């Protein structure tokens, strides 16, 4: 089945990962951590104190065993217990304080990183979104950021805290009895080495598992989105087979992960325990020989025990840090992409305008000039350098108030051309002017306020019908505008929905048919009475009756706007005053429908499908 080919290595999130160290990568988080640094550092300090308090407890025990207990002094016992209680309270409260200190700030760091990501993604070029599936972006905005929050909450603090604790603990042990201390220390080196080796191998397997989950998600997504095709061709068994194979592979990787984990845990559990055993035997001999007090042995062993978690945890703390580094990398992969610069052209505009007599963005429209394409050339930024441009040498003038139909064979570049006007893609060279203003000198927001678009693929957002339509208009738009737009688009069905125009649609609401969505998208395009209107095959999903009704209503709208309409059919072409024929990325002819029908064989072929033109 097709879907099995969704190979991991090629998806965009695996582009040239340089061998930067995990630490260097994690340092990039600093700007987000900076605002909460005081709390974070305080929390770490608190945690260190708390951990050290825990290490003092065995010393109190020693004092009790060797002092009051040995001396049969009940009052001393009470005192010791009181010390223990105080230490215990201190430890508990300090650990609580640590969590309290970081809880809100870290949730804040996560949220601000997410908000930044969202804000940044909204402003990245459309070409970027063409390249990146939304699932990949989402996983950065959710899982990766949660990993980072957890990293800041635990591994970052506890790598420090545990190191200090281990150091202090080891010093305490060495001070009490240096031979026993050395015995306890023996496994430290092999455990660390195992951890480091494990961490590397585990990270690579874990990354593979992550990627395989991504592939699995792709199959799930496609099998849901393409359900009609799968059912229509009875392919659900082969689809299930593809899914099974992928999930088996994932299971294999997960088991490999488990094997690595089991090994490391085996080592981490066994070695320190062996050392403790050796220390116990040695200690017993020393106690028997009178070289060591019983209290010291008890204290020593409970210190060793208290150090167990800090040592054991280093392995998974490092693994978590590694994962956090990967997450940081993935996050900045996206954040490092440069956005459409919204401000720069605004600031640059005067200079640019001065250099070009045709444009002067600061004055109100000097004259009605309509839409002009000057020698426009366009090549998709991700297309190979040597490929022919998608659009080349486009010169076209749509006069003010005029409607121009754009006709061309499938794949001739019509949709691409329409995307250039609101600057969803940037021209590779040449200029497009609206009423004499170069669109590259206009701030995008003002440009897009001038130009309204209805896309071939009608997208509705999770909001009410009214919101979806009115987002095409300025803030002042209200009920009358909505009604007018719905009437133009023949979208009266909106009133018969369960809650009328307040009905929620989109992913979170009612699902509408293709024709219904197309009509709402059209209503959205016309609701703001835009100065310039771009319609990409706006009537393809409508039946003949509705299409005729929409056309009749559109005529009034088109009379007062300058429009570019991609058309496949004569009926749509007839909405326009003139027609431009796009052929292999160039404008081949411009004229009225009838002129072109007579004079241009390709046009005649496109419109009437005449067999003469075919052969």
């Amino acid at each position, binding site marked *: 089945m097709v879907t099995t080919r969704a190979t991991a290595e090629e998806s965009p999130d695996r582009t040239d990962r340089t061998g930067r160290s995990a630490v260097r990568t994690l340092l990039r988080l600093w700007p987000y951590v900076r605002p909460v640094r005081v709390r974070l550092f305080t929390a770490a300090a608190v945690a260190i104190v708390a951990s050290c308090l825990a290490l003092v407890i065995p010393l109190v025990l020693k004092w009790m065993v060797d002092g009051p207990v040995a001396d049969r002094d009940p009052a001393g016992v009470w005192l010791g217990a009181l010390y223990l209680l105080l230490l215990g309270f201190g430890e508990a409260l300090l650990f609580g304080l640590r969590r309290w200190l970081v809880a809100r700030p870290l949730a804040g760091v996560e949220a601000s990183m997410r908000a930044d990501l969202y804000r940044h993604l909204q402003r990245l070029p459309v070409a970027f979104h063409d390249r990146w599936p*939304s699932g990949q972006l989402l996983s950065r905005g959710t899982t990766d950021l949660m990993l980072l929050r957890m990293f800041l909450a635990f591994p970052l603090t506890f790598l420090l805290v545990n190191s200090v604790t281990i150091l202090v603990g080891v010093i305490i042990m060495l001070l009490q009895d240096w031979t026993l201390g050395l015995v306890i220390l023996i496994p430290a080196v092999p455990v660390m080495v195992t951890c480091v080796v494990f961490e590397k191998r585990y990270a690579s397997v874990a990354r593979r598992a992550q990627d395989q989950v991504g592939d699995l998600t792709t199959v799930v997504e496609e099998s849901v989105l393409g359900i009609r095709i799968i059912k229509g061709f009875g392919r659900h068994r082969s689809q299930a087979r593809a899914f099974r194979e992928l999930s088996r592979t994932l299971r294999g990787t997960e088991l490999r992960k488990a094997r690595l984990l089991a090994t490391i845990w085996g080592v981490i559990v066994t070695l320190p325990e062996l050392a403790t055993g050796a220390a116990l035997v040695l200690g017993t001999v020393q106690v028997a020989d009178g070289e060591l007090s019983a209290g010291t042995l008890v204290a020593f062993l409970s210190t060793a025990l208290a150090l167990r978690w800090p040592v054991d945890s280093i392995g998974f703390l490092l693994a978590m840090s590694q994962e956090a580094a990967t997450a940081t990398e993935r996050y900045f992969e996206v954040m490092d992409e440069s956005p459409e610069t919204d401000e720069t052209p605004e600031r640059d505009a005067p200079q640019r305008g001065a250099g070009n007599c045709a444009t002067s963005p600061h004055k109100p429209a000097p004259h009605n000039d309509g839409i002009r394409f000057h020698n426009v050339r366009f090549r998709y930024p991700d297309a190979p350098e040597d490929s022919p441009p998608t659009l080349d040498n486009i010169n076209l003038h749509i006069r003010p108030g005029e409607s121009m139909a754009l006709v061309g064979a499938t794949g001739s570049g019509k949709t691409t051309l329409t995307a250039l006007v609101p600057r969803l893609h940037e021209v590779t060279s040449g200029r497009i002017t609206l009423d004499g203003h170069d669109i590259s000198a206009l701030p995008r927001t003002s440009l897009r306020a001038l130009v309204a678009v209805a896309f071939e693929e009608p997208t509705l957002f999770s909001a009410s019908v009214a919101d979806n339509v009115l987002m095409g208009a300025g803030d002042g738009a209200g009920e009358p505008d909505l009604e007018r737009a719905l009437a133009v688009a023949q979208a009266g069905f909106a009133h018969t929905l369960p809650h009328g125009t307040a009905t929620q649609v989109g992913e979170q609401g009612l699902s509408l048919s293709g024709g219904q969505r197309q009509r709402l998208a059209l209503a959205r395009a016309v609701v703001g009475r835009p100065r310039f209107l771009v319609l990409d095959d706006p009537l393809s999903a409508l039946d003949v009756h509705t299409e005729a009704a929409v056309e009749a209503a559109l005529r009034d709208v088109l009379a007062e706007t300058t429009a570019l309409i991609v058309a496949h059919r004569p009926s749509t072409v007839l909405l326009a005053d003139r027609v431009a024929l796009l052929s292999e990325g160039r404008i081949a002819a411009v004229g009225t429908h009838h002129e072109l029908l007579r004079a241009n064989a390709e046009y005649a072929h496109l419109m009437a499908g005449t067999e003469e033109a075919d052969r």
Partner: protein
Amino acid sequence: MTATTATAPGKDQPGEDPPAAEPRTPDDPFDRDVLPTPPGATAALLRSLLAPMKARVAVTTLLLLLQQAAVQAGPLLVAYAIDSAVPAFRHSDLGPLIAVGVGYLLCALASGALQYAFILLSARVNQDVLLDLRGRIFRHAQALSLDFHERYTSGRLISRSTTDVESLRELLDEGLQELVTVILSFVYISAMLLWLDLGLGAVAVASLVPLYLLVRRYRRRAARVYTVRSTAIAAVIVKFVETMNGIRPVRAFRREAANDADFRTLNTRHERTNGDALLEMAQYVVGSRLVANTAVAAIVLWGAYRVAGGTLALGVLAAAVLFLRRLYDPIDRLGMFLNSYQSAAASLEKIAGLLAQTPTVPEPATPGQLPARASEHPGREVVFDGVRFGYRTGGEVLPRFDLTMPAGQTVAVVGSTGAGKSTLAKLLARFYDPSDGRVLLDGVDLRELAVPELRRGVVMVTQEAFLFSGTVAENIAIGRPDATREEIEQAAKAIGAHDFISSLPDGYDTDVRKRGGRISAGQRQLVAFARALLADPAVLILDEATSSLDVPGERAVQHAMSTVLHGRTAVVIAHRLSTVEIADRVLVMEDGKIVEDGTPAELVAGTGRFADLHRAWRDSLA
């Protein structure tokens, strides 16, 4: 959104719903994220997932029991060393000391080895459970009929099989082992303490009561916070995905700032509940630590008092102290377990709700066979026998419907939106089953045909031409997976798709999701056509299959159709009447009924609706 409230008052009151165009009610459970789950379905699902693993779960538990035994033996050996080995050694008896050494060695090795075995085995169990669950969700979603998919949005279905499975994975991977370890070590250590000294043990056991109360309180409070949090993050995700998928309209309609504001609201809500959850955890940690440390102090006090009084051995006190550390260590982890349990339970319930949906178009238990073809032509006869169809939620789309299409006939169906054309097509493709009556293919009820047999019989091409990731050739080959490259290219040539495919960077091997793989809506429809041709079915249904094609594209398709459809039974639904020209017969539908039926020539010559439509369409071509 800002301009939302500009709707007429009263329109949003549920009581005044006009009959909706769609078969929906305002309280449709499909509008919510959670499908109705029959009581006990979640538990039953969990049971059925674990049932095949019974033996392995038992072995895993046993391993954990042994492992804990080995780990918890340590303090006992310490007590023995202090109380027995020390005095014995003083009397030059090395026996007890060697016993301690060997015992500790064995315990260390055993606990390491058992830990290793346990992790491996439990990972195997977990992965098998997940494999099973993933497969079940996937197969079930695929088996559910189209009416389900039309109501349950794709995003929800996708998150059922991704994030929801993932949260169960977290529970299995970390949570369960954690829980069992915690319970086991509580039981072991309490038992050991009681055995060492009844009094000290009793104090330790008593301390479990306030701990239990703390855990219970935390569980309740956390459940509330976590529910709010998961709703909050879900809202963030929806907004995120929707923005990214609709980036063009977002840009074109300058929604960035408004979206930023909306997102900030949602994100802040999540941030707040996220902080609440973390603080809840902090409270729990403080509480449990306080109880634990107080208990340690109390036990030490009493123990030391008794050692001082000579009624307790020093070694026992040492062992008790060592045990206590271990007893209270896992309490924090218990909190984490509760977290993953909370979210896994919620996820599992959603999954159970999905799995509880029954396919309304089930596969036959004992499939029938289509009879051998009467002639050398591929076509088969189609009969709608007293078919009635209505949506489950009410609203009849097809009242009683009878229709016979002889083998090899090409039938065009026209009519306005909502006339029932697509329903007719979906019944014939068995995307739906009729509420009443039968749809027969060469006399066999479609419901008796197994899927492969059915799809050799009927194939449908729809307006939305979805492409799967993979190459163009692979996408065409969905029609017939065993087709050769020549056959694939032939199908593409026949439909007029060869030229554009050859001009793609890698021709037929171009990956549709990769660089240079931009394929327009019209081109996608051509690929979908080629796919259908390759499938070579007896009955071909084309539902608005040419809507995005330009006129020459449509012409080419029609040209191909006249040869391809020859001898096949075909149902063509199109708004454009150009398609009708190749039909042998035209049906005009209205309100689920056939109002006109005849050859195109007859109808055009007549005075009915079709003649009107045809005239209007002719005019539009002028």
